[in-house]
Structures are given as C-alpha cells and as structure tokens.
C-alpha cells in the first residue's frame, strides 16, 4: 500500500505515525513545501520572543522519519491532485503515485483587501519562514503594528513586545480575542497586557498601509504608516497582519474533491473522492456543539483528525465523532484563560452564568442550553477545564452541577462517585 500525505505538520505527522503503527509494511511518503522537519507553528511566538531556538520547535526527534520508515519529499509544493490517475503533481512536474492520499495542507495567512499590504515589512505569522523574516526586520525596527487582536495577532504582539519592541494592536471589533472571549474576559487580559506596555486601539479598521515617503527614504528609513479608518496614522517598521486564515485548497481546485471553504469530508475523513482523505486545518467537519460544518483550525483537532483519517486509510474504520471547533488556551503574561464552544450566545435562548472578579483577574462563564453546557470561559483559574469540556462533548445534563462548576468547585470525583 502506498500512502501519501501532503503536509508535514500536526495532522500529517500524527497520520504518518498512526499509519506506521497499523501497517508495518506500507509505504508512507510525506510531501511538504517547507524544507525542514515538522515543527510546531504554535511555538512560533516563543521563537519570535527568543524563548526557543529553531531546534526547539521540532515536534518529533530528528530521526522520526527514518525510525518510522517515512519517505520525505520536502521543499516541493504539490500543485495538483489527479484523482483519476491517483497521482500528486509537484511544482517541478514530478509525480508521486498513491493508493491512499491524505491532504493535510493546513491553512495560510489571509491578507485582507487593504491597500499596501504587499510591501516590505508587512508580514503574516504562519510558518518558520515568516518568523525568520520578522526577526530579520526586527534588527532595524522600533515599532510594530499588529492588525487583528485574534489569537495569532495577540501571540505575535506579546512575543515582539518581549523582544523590546513598541507594539500597538489594532482591532476592528470592540474587544480583543473577539472569537474566543466576551468583553469582561477580554478586558482582564487586555488590562494585564496594557500594564506591561502593549497598546491597543479597538473598534478601528485599517484603511491603508502606506510605504515610506520619498523624503524618509532619502534618509534610509523603511518605516511604514498604518492609516486607520478615522484617518489616524501609526508609524511602524513592522506590520503584522493577523486578521484571518484561509485553508490551503488550491491543489484540489477543479477536481472531483468537493470544496466548500475548506475540503468537505465525510465521517471517515474521506473526501468526495474515494481514497482521498483530508484532515487538520484544511478539512471541514461538524462542530459537536454548534452542529455547524466548518474548519476547526486548532492544533488538537488537527492531530485527532489526522489519527482518524489514518485509521480509515489503513482499513480500520473509525468514525469521526465530532470535536469542539473553538477551544483555545492562552496565557500571555500571567493570567491564563481557556475558552471553548459558544462563549457569546447569539440570542436569549441560552442560560448564562457568570462570576466576575476583575480585581483578582478572575472570570468564569458558562453558557448552557437546556442545562447542557455549550460554552465556557475560564480566566485566572483554568483547573478542571478538561472536565467541563468532557461534559460539553458528552452533552451531559449539568443541572445538578452547574452552580458548583461556576464556582470552580467541580471535579471528576463527582462523576466517579456517581457511578461507584
């Protein structure tokens, strides 16, 4: 059996590992357009901050590929999947044949349609090459503007702040981490970072990123101006664009593989074309909480999906039972926070329980529907987050526990005592 995996990251590595466990003799090939061994892009902020070097970003020992007998085709982009011939076409026109294919191409930075984003010093943060380039610019930089206070924007901001740069974060929405947190939670985190010296401009869009004027260029300056909706101008030598991501699906456009925004898969992580699977950021799956089918671009889900796809590729049917699409853990400075599921209910049909102690950097919020927890935010005290998450995944009736959970007094012991 020839297994081919496109994408050498969270989903791809877990899939290769799982395939090797289930099929000792199968041929496994990983294709990646990045040149080196798999690393964690979640650690790129730590790399930017100077807390980890490149070697410390690797997610597996160096001999991983040899030990698992995985062939590697690195530094080559897959440009097309020919599902009829069962071949992957690479950028240099070479071809790789497969019996079973996994598309684990992840996502990349989506640059919004704002003028001036193509210029030098304007960068996304998605891969090691981006991070290296940012550090290159850092040598001559004093000021950074981060566009977008989502997860990646905030990580980038804090990392560069730790490097001693002056950082301003611009966010269109009224609070930071708008997809993850509600306002009270966001304000605790923001205050904590503001106290450190990171500056925030909220409720403001970016109209344009202007290059250095002729005059400043004459003096050898490379700084750029970030012009906001209201005309205000922020000067910066580095602009980080973190307003969103898009799944890497170009290689399967114009094939039978069904695309929505990401790649549509069934409950076995198989695409519309037999023997072609997709997993990770690029795949669209059903969110167990919301029932909505969409991408769930977080590391744990990529890994789990990679494992499930691999089981099915190896002929061991395993159903994807659904994961929670939004689950994030953050700790920029000193205040940890975990958010999961529906944290800002869209209408009044949800029950919301909240406990707010901003003076102690504490906040807990539970969102319930018919006594089933569908969302939570924990700020300050994140212990037991996984136990609550398990209740959410099981859609357990939490009527008897919800007050206790809100107060942070719940733990797995209650569940064990209930069945003993």
């Amino acid at each position, binding site marked *: 059996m020839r297994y081919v995996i496109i994408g050498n990251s969270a989903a791809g590595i877990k899939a290769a590992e799982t395939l090797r466990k289930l099929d000792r003799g199968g041929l496994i090939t990983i294709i990646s357009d990045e040149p080196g061994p798999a690393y964690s892009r979640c650690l790129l902020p730590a790399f930017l901050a100077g807390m980890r070097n490149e070697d410390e970003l*690797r997610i597996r020992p160096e001999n991983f590929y040899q030990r698992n007998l995985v062939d590697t085709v690195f530094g080559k982009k897959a440009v097309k999947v020919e599902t009829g011939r069962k071949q992957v076409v690479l950028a240099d026109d070479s071809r790789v044949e497969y019996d079973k294919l996994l598309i684990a191409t992840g996502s990349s930075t989506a640059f919004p349609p704002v003028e001036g984003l193509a210029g030098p010093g304007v960068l996304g943060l998605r891969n090691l090459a981006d991070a290296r380039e940012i550090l290159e610019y850092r040598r001559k930089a004093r000021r950074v503007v981060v566009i977008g206070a989502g997860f990646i924007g905030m990580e980038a901001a804090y990392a560069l702040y730790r490097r001693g740069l002056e950082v301003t974060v611009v966010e269109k929405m009224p609070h930071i981490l708008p997809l993850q947190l509600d306002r009270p939670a966001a304000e605790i985190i923001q205050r904590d970072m503001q106290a450190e010296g990171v500056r925030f401009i909220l409720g403001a869009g970016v109209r344009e990123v202007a290059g250095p004027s002729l005059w400043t260029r004459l003096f050898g300056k490379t700084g750029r101006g970030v012009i906001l909706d209201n005309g205000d101008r922020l000067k910066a030598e580095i602009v980080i664009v973190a307003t969103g991501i898009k799944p890497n699906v170009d290689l399967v456009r114009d094939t039978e593989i069904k695309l929505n925004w990401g790649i549509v898969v069934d409950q076995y992580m198989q695409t519309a074309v037999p023997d072609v699977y997709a997993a990770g950021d690029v795949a669209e799956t059903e969110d167990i909480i919301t029932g909505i089918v969409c991408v769930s671009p977080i*590391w744990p889900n990529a890994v789990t999906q990679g494992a499930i796809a691999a089981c099915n590729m190896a002929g061991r049917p395993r159903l994807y039972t659904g994961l929670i699409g939004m689950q994030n853990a953050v700790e920029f400075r000193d205040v940890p926070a975990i958010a999961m599921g529906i944290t800002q209910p869209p209408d009044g049909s949800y029950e919301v329980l909240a406990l707010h102690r901003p003076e102690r950097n504490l906040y807990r919020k539970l969102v319930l529907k018919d006594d089933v927890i569908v969302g939570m935010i924990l700020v300050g005290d*994140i212990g037991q*987050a*996984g136990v609550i998450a398990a209740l959410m995944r099981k859609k357990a009736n939490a009527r008897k526990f919800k007050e206790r959970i809100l107060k942070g007094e719940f733990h797995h012991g209650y569940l064990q005592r*209930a069945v003993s």
Partner: protein
Amino acid sequence: MKEIMVHLDRCNGCLTCSLACAAAHSSSGTIVGAMLEGIPGRIFVQAAGSRPVPILCRHCEDAPCVDACMTGAMQKDPGTGLVSNEGREQTCVGCWMCIMACPYGAIIQKPGEKKLALKCDGCPGREIPACVAACPNNALVYEEADAFSEERRRKAASTLV
C-alpha cells in the same frame, strides 16, 4: 500492563498518596522536604460531597493530552504505556492545552515561575508507584488492568447523573 486502580470505597481521604507523590518527586525524597521545596503531589484527593475521591492520570490509550500537546513533549511511551511530558527531547512550554483536554482533570499548572504542566509520570524506576506504596487503606492498588476495570473507567468518564 499494570496500572493504578482505585477502590473508592476504601479511600478515607488521608492524603498520604498525595504527600508520598510529592516526596517521590522532590529532591530530598521526604515529605517535609517536598513541602519546603514547594513540590505538589500529582494525585489529588478531592471531596465529592462528603466523600473523598483520589483523582489521578489514567494514562489513557488514546490520550487526549497527547493529541493536544503542541510541542510534542506529551507522549505515551509505547513500551511502558505511561503518558508523560517529561524526559524527552521535546519539552513542555506550559500552554495548558493538555489541561483543556484532560477529561479527568489530572493535569495541573506547576507552581512557580516557569510555566510547566504537571502530571503523574507513573513513577518510572520504581517497582510500585509511590502513591500506591504509601496508601494505608489499599484504596490504590497496582495491578494488571482487565477488561472490567477498563469498562468501569470509561463509564466514569462518560456517565453522569
């Protein structure tokens, strides 16, 4: 493979397991030393209602903390079956994603400056884990896991009143 089984009916909440765990993970090897060093136990005795329940890592087969780990530090050792984020080339950064993933609440933030997730490492090098060896009530026993215990464990993870 042996694992730590809990007999809830025998636990009287004496906390000896937790103290012995802390001692085993301290440099002095003693309970007092562990307290002075600020080493926490990695098994937690919680009160459910008025009854004590020891909470500890189950070293799951398909461990969610392993999938959640973004550095590759958290791995299940194929030989011993132990799940740990220590003793590998890849190291923990304290991102807390494993805490978010563990359905038992068996992972905590290590107290102190350095961000690090802390969990049961199964006491590698000891014949019997320190908590089991110390339990005066036989509430913790180290035995071959059978189908029954597996079943009961899963039930505990999934059943709710």
